[in-house]
């Protein structure tokens, strides 16, 4: 394979050529760079060569120049600065005024060659040599790992660092030191840290891993990474925690710790030092352009070699802000749904968490709606509609099923639809009792006889029905899905025409003044309409047509599609979101769409159900 690779490279070499001599453009760029630096090199050389004289000069400059206020925020030097070395190592410098014209600097390097690659810290105090030059007479550099810093070549480090000079260029607002490093303002301060947020990355098995970074005091950050499938914990979830400090665009956690959520110890083949070593200086780098974090995770994958040796493979993880796909900030409350014979509730501030069983006993159906105070739940099943209390006691309201039934907001009245008869072979329907019949009934919740609120009429369809029986005469229409408005004054329902269109209508709760909200093939088409729900303020309606989720104003305005593959919609209490069940390849998940920007958030396995702000159960 090696030979083949070499041959391939030989062949592919021909595909890439660069100009054989130093291109003009590059020469010019180098020239520009050198011009800037030429002056600085000269200044630095002065500082270095004149050496001991610098102090005296500094004093005399102070005399000549207007005094610089010691704690003046206006000094161009006082700030946090950052630079990148050619080898990619990152350095930050904090310059503070320390009184009486003196300045204090703290320079941190995340990988100092003089410390064999370990991070270093350099401190020193100095004075302004002129308004534009800050000279630090004897900076002291220490290696963070405790080793002694050592110059790789030339005079001792101490000597090389003597009279470290920073020159401020007002035009570019940068500092240049006598090693030709150009420092830019790191800006920010603790309030605009790019790190503090919830981040997610996609795990090797396609699931989401979440990391929370919090500020924990001045310049310190706390991280928590939850890993649902930790190899080090034999597959049980693990939590990594640690605190660290930012170094420019990097956040370095010197010694993070991993704990297995089941209390077991992380398994690293009886070598705890190995784990410590592998995790040391866990570094997250922020890329401002794409606003992502990356980190190299050395223990991401594990395999056993033929000789039985365990080998860990690393992987670069790319983290993006959770809000882009997992925004939780503005969703709260509880969704209740029926599952495994009980009633389950999900805390919407914790996406991904499984639901909590709030009613363990077998309940007679699935949740339909909450009473306003959140203390009672209307459920429906094959046996009828029931009102369930938080102590799991249930009162049967009707023996009608949950399909096409609703309880009035005051709990006193039930509306439901009864549809019967043969619909499709009209000319073959025999007796009157077989003729299609659909009506909305109203029943006292305490019992009593149902009375007809609205009986479906018949209609001649304008379209060509082909050979369908509808072509032979007026077609009976079916009524579907009556729902009380939140104030109980109105009832919304569908007039179903099956393949030939549907209309959404609203009538007064006494059955009068039925009017169209939206109708016909253009809008509702011939699809299957379901899941009608009023928003809490009574101004809008949501429903699904063939798994498309639509919203429309009660006055017919603003009809629009807000989500796909959605069934069983439920409004958020404040009307800003709609929860629904998403079905994909047989798996159901709970999703919530935010209506102002149609951003969708998936909450994982489960389903939608009535949404309440307060769960008093």
């Amino acid at each position, binding site marked *: 394979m090696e030979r083949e690779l070499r041959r391939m490279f030989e062949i592919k070499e021909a*595909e890439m050529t660069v100009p054989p001599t130093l291109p003009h453009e590059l020469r010019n760029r180098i020239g520009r760079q050198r011009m800037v630096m030429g002056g600085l090199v000269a200044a630095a050389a002065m500082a270095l060569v004149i050496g001991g004289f610098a102090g005296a000069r500094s004093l005399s400059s102070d005399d000549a120049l207007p005094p610089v206020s010691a704690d003046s925020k206006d000094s161009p030097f006082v700030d946090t600065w950052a630079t990148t070395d050619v080898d990619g190592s990152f350095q930050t410098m904090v310059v503070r005024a320390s009184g009486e014209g003196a300045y204090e600097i703290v320079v941190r390097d995340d990988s100092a060659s003089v410390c064999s690659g370990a991070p270093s810290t350099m401190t020193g105090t100095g004075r302004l040599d002129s308004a534009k030059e800050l000279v630090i007479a004897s900076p002291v550099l220490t290696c963070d790992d405790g080793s002694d810093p050592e110059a790789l070549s030339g005079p001792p480090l101490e000597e090389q660092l003597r009279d470290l000079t920073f020159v401020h260029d007002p035009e570019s607002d940068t500092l240049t030191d006598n090693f030709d490093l150009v420092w830019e303002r790191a800006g920010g301060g603790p309030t605009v840290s790019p790190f503090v947020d919830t981040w997610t990355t996609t795990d090797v098995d396609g699931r989401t891993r979440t990391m929370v970074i919090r500020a924990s005091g001045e310049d310190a950050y706390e991280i928590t990474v939850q890993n649902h499938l930790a190899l080090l914990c034999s597959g049980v979830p693990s939590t990594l925690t640690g605190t660290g400090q930012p170094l420019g665009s990097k956040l370095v956690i010197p010694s993070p710790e991993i704990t297995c959520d089941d209390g077991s110890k992380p398994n690293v083949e009886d070598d705890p030092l190995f784990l410590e070593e592998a995790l040391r200086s866990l570094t997250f780098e922020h890329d401002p352009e794409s606003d992502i974090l990356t980190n190299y995770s050395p223990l991401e994958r594990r395999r056993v070699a033929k000789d039985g040796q365990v080998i860990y493979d690393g992987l670069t993880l790319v983290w993006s802000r959770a809000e882009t796909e997992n925004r939780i900030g503005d969703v709260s409350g509880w969704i209740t749904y029926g599952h495994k014979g009980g009633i389950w509730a999900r805390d919407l501030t914790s996406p991904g968490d499984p639901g909590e069983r709030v009613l363990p006993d077998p309940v007679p159906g699935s949740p339909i709606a909450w009473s306003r105070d959140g203390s009672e739940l209307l459920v429906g099943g094959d046996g009828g509609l029931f009102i369930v209390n938080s102590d799991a006691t249930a009162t049967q309201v009707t023996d009608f099923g949950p399909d096409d039934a609703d309880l009035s907001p005051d709990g006193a009245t039930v509306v439901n639809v009864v549809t019967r008869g043969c619909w499709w072979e009209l000319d073959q329907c025999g007796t009157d009792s077989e003729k299609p019949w659909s009506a909305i009934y109203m029943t006292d919740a305490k019992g009593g006889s149902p009375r007809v609120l609205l009986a479906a009429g018949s209609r001649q369809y304008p379209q060509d029905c082909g050979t369908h029986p509808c072509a032979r005469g007026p077609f009976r229409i079916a009524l579907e899905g009556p729902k009380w408005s939140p104030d109980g004054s109105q009832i919304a329902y569908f007039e179903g025409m099956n393949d030939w269109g549907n209309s959404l209508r609203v009538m007064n709760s006494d059955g009068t003044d039925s009017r169209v909200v939206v109708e016909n093939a253009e809008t509702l088409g011939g699809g299957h309409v379901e899941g009608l729900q009023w928003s809490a303020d009574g101004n809008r309606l949501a429903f699904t047509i063939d798994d498309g989720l639509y919203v429309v104003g009660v006055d017919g305005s603003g009809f629009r599609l807000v989500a796909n593959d959605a069934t069983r919609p439920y409004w958020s209490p404040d009307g800003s979101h709609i929860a629904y069940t998403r079905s994909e390849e047989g798996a159901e998940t709970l999703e919530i769409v935010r209506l102002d920007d149609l951003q969708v958030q998936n909450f994982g396995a489960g389903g939608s159900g009535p949404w309440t702000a307060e769960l008093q159960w």
Partner: protein
Amino acid sequence: VHAREMSGPQARTSSMEELYTANAQRAGRLAYFLLSDRELAQDLVQEAFLKVFARWGNLREPQSFAAYLNRTIVNLARKAHRRRGIERRYLDKQSRLEAVAPERDYGTAEELWRQLQLLPQRQKTAIVLRFYEDLSEHQAAEAMGCSEKAVASLVQRALGTLRENARAEVS
């Protein structure tokens, strides 16, 4: 001091020409093999020379210009790679390629080239440094900013994948 400053830049400029001529083609190909995009590689090489020249006076071991350049190119390529989100797209691409069961004809350099592009960036970098640049594990480790062990492991895995795919093709 003054005289030294005058002679310095000139000496540097002429050696820059030499250094460029001596290293440019190799650097360009390294960048191309890492990015598999000629235009990006051109830009990256310019950037790399600029960066190394800018710091040239402060480099501790002038004789190892090539090593500095390598390291800079590897770093810049890594950044470019990350910025472009190639890693994610590569994963998409890879799953698609696997799904359609590609022909694996190692008889042609093209196919091996294509397989190389499918390797994770670090594995690919290690392969290019070891078998195109002919760097030792030690030198490759320096260029990649990792341990020699890591380079060995990256190369092992990359070769393993390539061999496995070749075997799949044969059978």
